[in-house]
């Protein structure tokens, strides 16, 4: 395009402007808590990113194992004892019952099953010892997004048999399981795709969102060809809604997909071959690694880390654990502190973790609806791309106020008039003699670290009514501690991680 000088200068000033903006968004001030004697800033960073919120147990463990040892321990999720989740499932086993059992209950009462599914999700995120695994469950839930309301029981099966089964496994297994998952087959319409009129929805999204990425080197013709290849991949109603290949509806003519000739006369095997091409494609390594690096570093994933992670991906045939280990122990990851903004579910679950183990939930619905008000109903995102993972999508005027109101409201559970649950504040925060000690204890409990001196002083002055640090009585503590904790939940430190 020919461009005159004036236009050129204008464009120049525009890009300067967006650079200025980008640098603002990358602002590196005191966004996250400071290190303490018992937790270095590097350790704090790792815990912030691989958990749903730092607890004392996490701090003890990373001190005992070191960062590398901690990461290896967290990746080996199958061998982490998880007594709280086991006890939860033993008490409320509905989520893990056979399909027919859940389906029979859901037919009578959708709400019971729906609530059980959501409660299971919150409980595991907040209280499972397998925190990195739960972080990855969240990642793949977005990556292979399926909204729950239209496919309740099938979605539960998808969560169990696709997402949770393979969250730290091999990407190929995850992709194949997803492609044959009834919830996905319904949601992206492949169950309604027949040889006469193929439905392109799944064929497009599996390439654009699950594997190659939109710039991964496929054409509109490839979308049509893959749709033809996958005709007949559907669900057999009445047979526990299992995957079913219907050869009658399968297009057996010749196809050409991503440059490879698919001869005529084949059945399900050509779909498997096509998925295998996608699973092993270099674009898939690049695309999924870009998303993983964004998840663990920030909005602008460092290209060097994306490239090296994609190499590990290719060498290990999409071994998710090996790729994560590489990312979490990389210098690019270590440098990326305070770049991520907690999404609403993270914010909510993190509060539950800050209360652990001295909090009892009375009404899980109250907690779920709070997350919904912040804009992230779990499994509530309708388009197939999953909830966004960039800061700019989540910082908004309305939801920031809702955050503050939630952060201020939840510590009030101590008084027992908040019906969502009950918090044993005296057990959570030790007895102290001064306002300064109280602020430090609350900050460590909520943030894992400390706030800046200026903010510490301001919080102390809230406790003492502006007379600075001094001894406080138990009554003073009682009068201030909930609001003090609410202020820490509402501080910028608790929003970034």
């Amino acid at each position, binding site marked *: 395009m020919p461009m005159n000088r004036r236009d050129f200068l*204008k464009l120049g000033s*525009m890009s300067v*402007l*967006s650079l200025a*903006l*980008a640098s*603002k*968004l990358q*602002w590196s*001030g005191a966004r996250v808590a400071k290190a303490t004697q018992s937790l270095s800033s590097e350790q704090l960073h790792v815990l912030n990113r691989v958990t749903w919120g730092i607890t004392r147990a996490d701090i003890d463990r990373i001190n005992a194992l070191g960062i590398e040892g901690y990461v290896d321990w967290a990746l080996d999720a199958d061998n982490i004892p998880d007594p709280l989740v086991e006890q939860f499932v033993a008490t409320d086993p509905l989520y893990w019952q056979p399909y027919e059992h859940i389906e029979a209950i859901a037919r009578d*009462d959708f*709400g019971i099953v729906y609530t059980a599914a959501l409660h299971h999700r919150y409980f595991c995120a907040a209280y499972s010892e397998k925190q990195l695994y739960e972080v990855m469950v969240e990642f793949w839930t977005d990556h292979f997004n399926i909204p729950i309301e239209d496919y309740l029981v099938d979605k539960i099966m998808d969560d169990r048999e696709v997402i949770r089964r393979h969250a730290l496994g091999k990407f190929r297994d995850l992709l194949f399981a997803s492609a044959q998952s009834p919830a996905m087959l319904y949601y992206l*319409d492949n169950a*309604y*795709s*027949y040889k006469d*009129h*193929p*439905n392109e929805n799944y064929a497009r999204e599996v390439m*654009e969102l699950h594997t190659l990425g*939109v710039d991964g080197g496929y054409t*509109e013709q490839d*979308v049509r060809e893959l749709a033809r290849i996958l005709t007949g991949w559907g669900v057999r109603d009445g047979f526990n809604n299992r995957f079913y290949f219907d050869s009658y509806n399968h297009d057996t003519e010749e196809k050409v997909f991503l440059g490879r000739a698919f001869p005529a006369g084949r059945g399900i095997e050509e779909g498997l071959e096509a998925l295998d091409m996608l699973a092993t494609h270099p674009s898939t390594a690049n695309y999924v690694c870009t998303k993983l690096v964004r998840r663990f570093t920030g909005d602008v994933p460092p290209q060097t880390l994306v490239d090296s992670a994609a190499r590990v991906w290719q060498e290990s045939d999409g071994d998710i654990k090996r790729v994560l280990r590489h990312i979490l122990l990389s210098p690019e990851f270590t440098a990326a502190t305070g770049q991520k*903004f907690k999404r609403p579910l993270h914010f909510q679950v993190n509060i539950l973790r800050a209360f652990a183990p001295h909090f009892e939930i009375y*009404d899980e*619905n*109250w907690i*779920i*609806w709070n997350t919904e008000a912040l*804009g992230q109903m779990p499994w509530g995102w309708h*388009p197939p*791309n999953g909830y966004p993972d960039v*800061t*700019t*999508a*989540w*910082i*908004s*005027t*309305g*939801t*920031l*106020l809702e955050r*503050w*109101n939630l952060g201020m*409201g939840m510590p*009030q559970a101590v008084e027992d*008039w908040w*019906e*969502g649950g009950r918090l044993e504040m005296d057990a959570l925060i030790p007895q102290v003699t001064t306002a300064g000690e109280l602020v430090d204890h609350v900050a460590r409990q909520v943030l894992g670290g400390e706030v800046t001196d200026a*903010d510490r002083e*301001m919080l102390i002055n*809230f406790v003492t009514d502006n007379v600075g640090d001094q001894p406080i009585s138990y009554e003073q503590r009682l009068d201030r501690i*909930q*609001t003090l904790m*609410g202020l820490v939940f509402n*501080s*910028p430190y608790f*929003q*970034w991680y």
Partner: protein
Amino acid sequence: MTISRRTLLKTAGVAAVVGVSQTLFPAWMPKLVFSPTAKAQAERDVLVAIFQRGGMDGLNAVVPYAEGVFYYDRRPTIAIPEQEVIDLDGFFGLHPALASLKDVYDTGALSIIHAAGSPDPSRSHFDAMAYMEKGIPGDKATTTGWISRHLQSAAWENDSPFRAVGIGTMVQSSLRGPVSALSLRSIADFHLQGREDHLSSIQQTIARMYQIEAPNDLLQAQARNVFSTVDLLQALNASDYQPANGAIYPDSDFGMGMKQIALLIKAGVGLEVACVDIGGWDTHEYQGGSDGEMANLLRDLGDGLAAFYTDLADYMHGVTVVSMSEFGRRVTENASQGTDHGHGNVMFVMGGGAVGGIHTDWPTLAPEALDDGDLEITTDYRDVLGEILVKRLGNNALDQIFPAYTVNARGIINER
């Protein structure tokens, strides 16, 4: 379902977390002054941009029923029968669920642009939406939206926090950029909560922790917005709003969004641009014909637009509403009695300035006229937006808003 929203709200109400009723700003905090002068508002229209997410099937919204077999044979189960179409000009007709829009059309305040859209061939929702909202089809590097660049390049000042408002929990891409936009889900009950005797300290502490007097990042800027918004909405008494002229908004997210925008326009708080979304248009299966899934969406859209028009009758001379969707849908229906992602689509422009009627360089649905099986685009959506920007919003800096594109005005709207 056993979950009842009402019960939950009641629970929250029982909690003694007390809302603020007295003035929110402690004496120490400087008022965040803004100056939307009446004169400044009179000089340009308020723009309301509606995004129909998912890709509306424009061929069933504004039906080219006179195409005959080219339309009817390709849509055996979902076509709108000729006798049910609301005729507009002997060739096109509205879907019956858009009946309330016909009233607006008859007043001459609705212009319909057919075979319009974004020229980029992408059939990906996310790319197509991003291209459309960023205003630069095919360019992924741009991070700012076309509306944000419009505000940035505008020659006038307006430091109202309500200058640009997005309805919803997330800021629309078109609003993202250097001019920070306000996003709201609901403007009723917008106040800071906490123990009443602590409230003043809570405000003071939060305001200082977020450095709202000199915001340094996006979060701090939005924190500042929260404080000024709370203050202003309290003054507006937003929860008691009653629409004028008997207008009844649909009880939907879209309807509520349009109602809130109407309130802000009437309140004269400096609103220049509002964005509202209406989702659910990705009708791959069972989209229905005169009734059904898409009919319900169209009814929501049409009734919401018509209620807005009625409610704002005295203001419409200074308001322009424009709708868009990332792409249209295939001409031929699929095996699931739905339609897959296509290309050309319909845009609506409503307002006192609209040149009523159908505006189209109709490419026809003849097989040889189709673009890869889809309706061809003969009007770039930027022609529509650009004409509005110049004629109604007083911004000529189209080279910044739509770089590398020359807007070709189609006469869809009159000069102010």
